[in-house]
């Protein structure tokens, strides 16, 4: 049996909500004893590996697996011809082949999978599979994909979806207009833990898959039909997750490992290497955005006109919803009475894109905040003042027609951000040279340094939207333990490193008055937890656990009343410090009433949402919003075009901070990821091929790149959710990139309309990006994904 990472509960003993309780997974992770997906092991297991297309677009003429099978230790090679059941899968649309069938649409697409006795044999076998390709013309540019003569990437053409939001009178007259064109490169989630899982065939003909993921039940829904099993025979167990950021929303090795394990009757482990990981998950959508913003002389916004393109790559993944998000947030967190927002998601032969932290709001924030700065300059207004004047609040109507009913403390977020302390301004010549632009490179002694300050403001939805109303189920059991009462929490909600399971334990401690809480590893034995994404699990899993705890408490207190008689209780009964209290009078330990465990199972739903109509309007497209603001201080070596961020000051609207240190960590981590997109992180494509699939050349921020983060939270409770807490995972990511870009513009006086910004651009060696004009409006059957009209 697998000795690692299976069904292991992590326990914690202290900390109610509102405290910075220690992470229940903190010590094992710090000590290196925490088992990640790549640490899985099972007696007799084989190692799976994937044969991938080197071509972005090609016809497969033939596949010869015989040379691979002839190698020592190679047990099986599967191609599309061997698939037992459904041949395509997908997060929203089943458009992605389990293994390429006749055609490959991106470089890196799986063509065959195989299993061997050891990983070295598996790698040798991958090289031995002979695939004969006939290269076809590849579409590797999103605007080129929209030309009438472009080759069709998919069966439905090259338009994935077009969303049009018409609000008020988009032709309304304004005193001042500013215009801009913006580009965002392809960022990678770059989780440190690569894709990993272990599939174990079960005696009942089913399969148990231990896998690092963000959403077990969505994986299972996609796996089961492709392996030809009913869902109940495909049991998923969460393996330790080493970061996700959206990269684990899609299926990677899941179906392949299950197919190999079931066909061989042996456990099969698959772990991607660092290079393969870049092909193993979707990336952030590259974007091109054309914006016109109109305002009155006094700074009041009149109109936002935005045309945008997102590149979906070869398959759909979550592109349909990322596009909807980009469009609904394209005007920024501002009251704009008139808007015309037209967005298109485009198929190309580049690698597929999908979910990544911020989910469409990062790209548009880069554009709408640059527009606000341009407008402030055109009006001669202070950028903060302009934003405060137009910021939405509770009661504001958004471009979708939605009225914000819940908490929307945007102005407070902005004001708090502006008031955070500035970093000391020690002359560059007097400082440790490691803190100068260029860092360890010893490129300067403080000469030609210019400092700049930038501000950005953004917002995003929490949880799923547009009528996709997801839920989370939780089971809570309270029982007698060795040292007192123990609460055990079971959900399918995934801890990806963000601290969710610690927060769930804090909720149980708060609701049940116990210290010891065990959080079981998520699996499909319980109902769906929904995805750990969209900043939703604090609300959703937190809500489910709080509700289940309330039911457990009611049932326990009923026992108390039964034991003591109805007249015994004088005040309200409550649970605290492991004891039952009648008002202030202790009645005895909770243990005392736990001859048998008390259990409850509850499903938590958020308020229902509604889809967008033909004009992009809806009653309630989003359930609630989070706001973030960030101020960046940067220094640029103006000769060398090198930058160092000196300070990031971020404020986030969280409703209620259930674990303040955890929130701080999310703000800092999100800021680092935003810094990466501003200055460093881009998947570079050359004719559809990834040219920098390694951490040598895909550059993540180091500690010399990442400055101190000063942060604060605004706690304005959201009505209708437990403790008024909103999500916390994405707020700072949305605004960090835009804030840093603004600061770089302030330092250099250059336009810098593309991220990541390059040294060439900062040094003035490369001009701003230009466009031949907004992308055309495609001809589509309706506002939904084109695949819906097939």
């Amino acid at each position: 049996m697998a000795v690692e990472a299976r069904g292991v509960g992590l326990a914690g003993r202290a900390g109610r909500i509102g405290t910075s309780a220690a992470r229940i997974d903190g010590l094992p992770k710090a000590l290196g004893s925490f088992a990640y997906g790549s640490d899985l092991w099972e007696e007799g297991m084989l190692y799976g590996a994937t044969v991938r297309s080197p071509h972005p677009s090609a016809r497969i003429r033939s596949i010869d697996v015989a040379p691979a099978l002839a190698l020592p230790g190679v047990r099986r090679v599967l191609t599309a011809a061997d698939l037992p059941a459904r041949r395509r899968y997908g997060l929203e649309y089943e458009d992605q082949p389990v293994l390429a069938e006749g055609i490959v649409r991106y470089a890196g697409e799986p063509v065959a999978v195989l299993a061997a006795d050891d990983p070295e044999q598996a790698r040798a076998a991958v090289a031995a599979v002979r695939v004969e390709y006939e290269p076809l013309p590849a579409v590797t540019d999103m605007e080129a994909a929209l030309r009438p003569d472009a080759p069709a990437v998919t069966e439905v053409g090259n338009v994935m979806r077009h969303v049009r939001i018409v609000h008020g009178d988009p032709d309304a007259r304004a005193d001042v207009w500013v215009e801009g064109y913006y580009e965002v490169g392809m960022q990678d989630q770059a989780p440190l833990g690569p894709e990993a899982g272990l599939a174990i065939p079960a005696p009942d003909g089913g399969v148990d898959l231990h896998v690092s993921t963000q959403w077990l039940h969505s994986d299972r829904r996609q796996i089961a039909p492709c392996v030809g099993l009913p869902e109940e025979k495909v049991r998923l167990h969460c393996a330790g997750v080493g970061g996700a950021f959206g990269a684990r929303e899609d299926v990677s090795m899941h179906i392949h490992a299950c197919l190999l394990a079931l066909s061989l009757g042996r456990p099969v482990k698959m772990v991607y290497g660092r290079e393969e990981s870049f092909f193993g998950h979707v990336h952030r959508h590259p974007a091109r955005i054309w914006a016109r913003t109109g305002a009155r002389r006094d700074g009041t916004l009149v109109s936002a006109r935005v045309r945008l393109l997102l590149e979906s790559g070869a398959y759909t993944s979550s592109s349909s919803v990322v596009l909807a998000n980009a469009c609904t947030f394209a005007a920024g967190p501002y009251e704009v009475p008139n808007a015309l927002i037209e967005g298109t998601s485009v198929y190309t032969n580049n690698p597929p894109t999908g979910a990544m932290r911020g989910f469409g709001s990062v790209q548009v924030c880069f554009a709408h905040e640059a527009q606000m700065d341009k407008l402030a300059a055109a009006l001669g207004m202070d950028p903060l003042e302009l934003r405060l004047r137009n910021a939405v609040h509770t009661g504001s109507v958004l471009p979708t027609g939605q009225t914000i009913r819940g908490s929307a403390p945007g102005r407070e977020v902005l004001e708090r951000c502006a008031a955070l302390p500035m970093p000391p301004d020690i002359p560059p010549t007097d400082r440790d040279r490691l803190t100068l632009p260029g860092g360890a490179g010893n490129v300067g002694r403080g000469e030609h340094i210019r400092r700049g300050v930038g501000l950005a403001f953004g917002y995003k939805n929490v949880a799923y939207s547009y009528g996709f109303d997801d839920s989370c189920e939780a089971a809570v059991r309270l029982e007698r333990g060795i040292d007192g009462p123990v609460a055990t929490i079971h959900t399918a909600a995934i801890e990806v490193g963000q601290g969710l399971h610690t927060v769930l334990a804090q909720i149980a401690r708060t609701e049940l008055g116990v210290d010891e809480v065990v959080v079981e590893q998520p699996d499909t034995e319980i109902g769906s937890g929904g995805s750990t994404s969209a900043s939703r699990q604090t609300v959703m899993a937190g809500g489910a656990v709080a509700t289940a705890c309330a039911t457990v408490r009611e049932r326990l207190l009923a026992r108390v009343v039964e034991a003591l008689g109805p007249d015994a209780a004088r005040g309200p009964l409550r649970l605290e410090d492991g004891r039952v209290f009648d008002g202030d009078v202790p009645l005895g330990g909770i243990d005392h009433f736990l001859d048998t465990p008390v259990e409850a199972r509850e499903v938590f739903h958020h308020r229902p949402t509604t889809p967008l109509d033909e004009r992009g309007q809806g009653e309630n497209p989003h359930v609630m919003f989070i706001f973030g603001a960030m101020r960046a201080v940067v220094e640029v070596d103006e000769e060398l075009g090198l930058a160092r961020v000196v300070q990031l000051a971020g404020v986030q609207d969280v409703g209620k901070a259930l674990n303040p240190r955890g929130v701080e960590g999310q703000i800092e981590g999100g800021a680092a990821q935003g810094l990466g997109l501003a200055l460093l992180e881009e998947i570079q494509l050359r004719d559809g091929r990834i040219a920098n699939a390694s951490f040598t050349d895909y550059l993540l921020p180091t500690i010399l790149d990442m400055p101190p983060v000063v942060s604060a939270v605004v706690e304005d409770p959201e009505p209708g959710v437990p403790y008024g807490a909103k999500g916390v995972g994405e707020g700072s990511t949305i605004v960090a990139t835009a804030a840093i870009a603004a600061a770089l513009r302030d330092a250099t006086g250059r336009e810098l309309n593309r991220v990541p910004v390059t040294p060439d651009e900062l040094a003035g060696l490369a001009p701003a990006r230009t466009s031949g004009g907004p992308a055309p409006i495609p001809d589509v059957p309706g506002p939904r994904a084109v695949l819906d009209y097939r």
Partner: protein
Amino acid sequence: MEVFRPSSLYEALEVRAAHPQAIPIAGGTDLMVELNFGRRRPEAILDVSRLPELQVIGREDGRVTLGAGVTYARIIRELADHPALAQAARTVGSPQIRNRGTVGGNLGTASPAGDSLPVLAVYDAEVVAASTAGTRRIPWREFLVGPKRNALAPDELIVAVEWRQPDGPGSFSKVGTRNAMVIAIAGVSLQLDTAARRIRIALGSVGPTILRAPEAEAFGAGILDESGAWADPRAEVPADALGRFGELAAAAARPIDDIRGTAAYRRHACAVLARRALTWALDDRRLAAG
């Protein structure tokens, strides 16, 4: 894969003679990357990390001997009187990499992006190579023969690198997009040889191999002559002459566009770094002169 683990240089040279296909490995910071990417699958490797003869840092009669197995971490600690080399060592990778990587690895890999190489070029170092037949000293100008190619014979091992202790200030600077742990887009090392009244400058990552910039060197020595700065460190050298020095240094670059940077940026960075390096060298002399 066969692994040889000799414990003395002589034993290692015998293995080298008998198995010239065995790839020498010390810290492994280059070779293991190649292995991980599947770019190389050597039949055999020769572990030189346990050879005491390669761990030496020696100083005698103004000459410095640096064993091929000395790590960058040790260079930073023990060769602080060689600021250019110590600065180059500091720009290599992360602390973990600097604890493993060796100067012998830079010489063996002979990449134009090897951080210590421009410094060894301006020290006009000699590479000490040994085989069972004996030891020879390879002058710097003969050592690097092309991109990732050096003058080592198949039966030789790099034992050390030697140079005459420089008399004058020197520096190494490296530009990368990231502030640490980055492969150089451009690197510049400059060394003043006060006794000989010469300037040496070498460029990394901007050509097929490490490039000296003879025109800039001659021009630089000339402007120091004209301004009297060789004799009097306090003498001012005109700013436009320093700028011209940078441009001449950049003119020696033969850069290309690749995923790490553009040719235009590389050339530009060489001009800026060369000008700054000479400026700092003059500042340092001025400071030392009081």
